[in-house]
């Protein structure tokens, strides 16, 4: 009977001030959506870092007038280097093939370039990709080397942008969370005010504190949970929309986010939504009802 009473009070409370309840739920949903998105992005960036840095290569381009001896000396030295896991030599023909592939949709450019004009190169896979600087310092003065290009520099830029997105989402999540928090506090105050007579009588006749507070706290928790469900729906919608739009072009670049990953974010969102609401409601009541 008491449970029934509490639950019916929760529903009545949510209906009584339905615009405020909606505002609370929507703010909560956006905040949790951003939080969930940021969490997913964080995971993705981690996955992608592992994947890409594993395959990152340092390319040493040779001068076009390099002679045979210089090239052999360099290759021997590279192969003996403990920092380098693998050395691949790319001659002019291979370089031209790669060039043709890379610019397949620009035939004019491909036709204008002859295999002879492309530099030979060594492609190095490092034991530890972060040791690029050492490789660079060691080989930059070697005979016959034109430039040393490190792919990880490019990756750093890509990941810089991605973690920028992630931080942005997190900041928005926090700002929205503060707004949601204030809305919860306000909603609870309004609810407590509209039930002030009941609360006064309950205090007078000795209803336990939890019994007085439970309907209010649960009201906030229910709103928080609905918000987290909407946040999840928004994440799902984003994945569906992204799969069918221009984002699909990035599919090869960014490892796709699986359904299970999205669903696994839900417990986090629900826990944050429910907990933040509950704590805010409880603290508000402590000040407002002084029970």
């Amino acid at each position, binding site marked *: 009977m*008491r449970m029934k009473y509490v639950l019916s009070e929760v529903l009545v409370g949510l209906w009584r001030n339905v615009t405020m309840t909606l505002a609370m739920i929507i703010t909560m949903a956006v905040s949790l959506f951003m939080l969930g998105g940021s969490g997913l992005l964080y995971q993705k960036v981690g996955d992608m870092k592992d994947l890409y840095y594993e395959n990152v290569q340092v390319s040493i381009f040779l001068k076009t007038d390099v002679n045979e001896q210089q090239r052999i000396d360099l290759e021997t030295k590279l192969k003996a280097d403990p920092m380098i896991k693998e050395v691949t030599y790319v001659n002019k023909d291979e370089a031209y093939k790669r060039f043709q592939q890379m610019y397949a949709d620009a035939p004019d450019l491909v036709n204008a370039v002859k295999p002879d004009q492309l530099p030979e190169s060594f492609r190095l896979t490092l034991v530890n990709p972060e040791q690029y600087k050492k490789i660079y310092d060691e080989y930059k003065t070697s005979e016959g080397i034109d430039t040393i290009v490190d792919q990880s520099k490019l990756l750093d830029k890509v990941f810089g942008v991605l973690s920028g997105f992630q931080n942005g989402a997190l900041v928005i999540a926090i700002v929205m969370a503060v707004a949601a928090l204030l809305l919860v506090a306000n909603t609870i105050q309004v609810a407590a005010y509209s039930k002030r*007579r*009941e609360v006064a*009588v309950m205090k*007078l*006749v*000795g209803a336990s504190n939890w019994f007085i507070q439970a309907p209010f706290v649960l009201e906030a928790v229910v709103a928080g949970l609905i918000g987290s469900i909407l946040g999840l729906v928004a994440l799902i919608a984003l994945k569906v929309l992204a799969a069918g739009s221009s984002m699909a072009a990035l599919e090869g670049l960014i490892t796709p986010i699986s359904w299970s990953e999205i669903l696994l974010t839900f417990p986090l969102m629900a826990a944050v939504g429910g907990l933040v609401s509950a704590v805010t409601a409880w603290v508000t009541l402590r000040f407002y009802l002084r029970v």
Partner: protein
Amino acid sequence: MTKTYPKASRPSLDNVSVSIEKGEFVFFIGPSGSGKSTIIKLLLHEVTPNKGRVVVNGKDVTSMRSWKRPHFRRSIGCVFQDFRLLPNRTAYENVAFALEVIGKTKAVARRVVPEVLELVGLGGKEHRYPHELSGGEQQRVAVARAFVNRPLILLADEPTGNLDPDTSIEIMRLLDRINRTGTTVVMVTHDSNIVNQMRRRVIEIESGRIVRDQARGVYG
């Protein structure tokens, strides 16, 4: 025992010592601001004294933790000048509400509430809303609510303050009847008529001090 409210220039109750026996009927009288209502608040553990002790039902409640307060309150019934009924509930529901929020089942309420409404003389008016009842009847509902849990003590803070003399006397008869069941009644009032008629123990307070404590007293 002394109680000084924050920001007050003088104590609301200054070195007051009173002992009320089980089953007594006591009036606290005195002009407004004399500290009468503070007595009620101290007994309800709504405020705590700055000095001294408050013992209720043999238990020292002076330093009682606030989370123990709800349970403590169940042994005390309370009636006020402004009735404090819930306007959107009937007489029956108002009384039943007090039972249900302390965990009594609906079945218990169905058995006990009609009984206590009968006792206060509201038989047949259980399903009226407060606005359909007269002031005296509303106060009866409030008394029923205070008494339904069979408290050891009934506190009444100017219960007749909003009622005409005849109705006041009816309420007093009701409180007297409750007192005869063994319930201690502590009533704060400045209704001289009633005090003079009842001839019960009178404690007069002035500026926070007891100036008179008289068995079978009059208003003065």
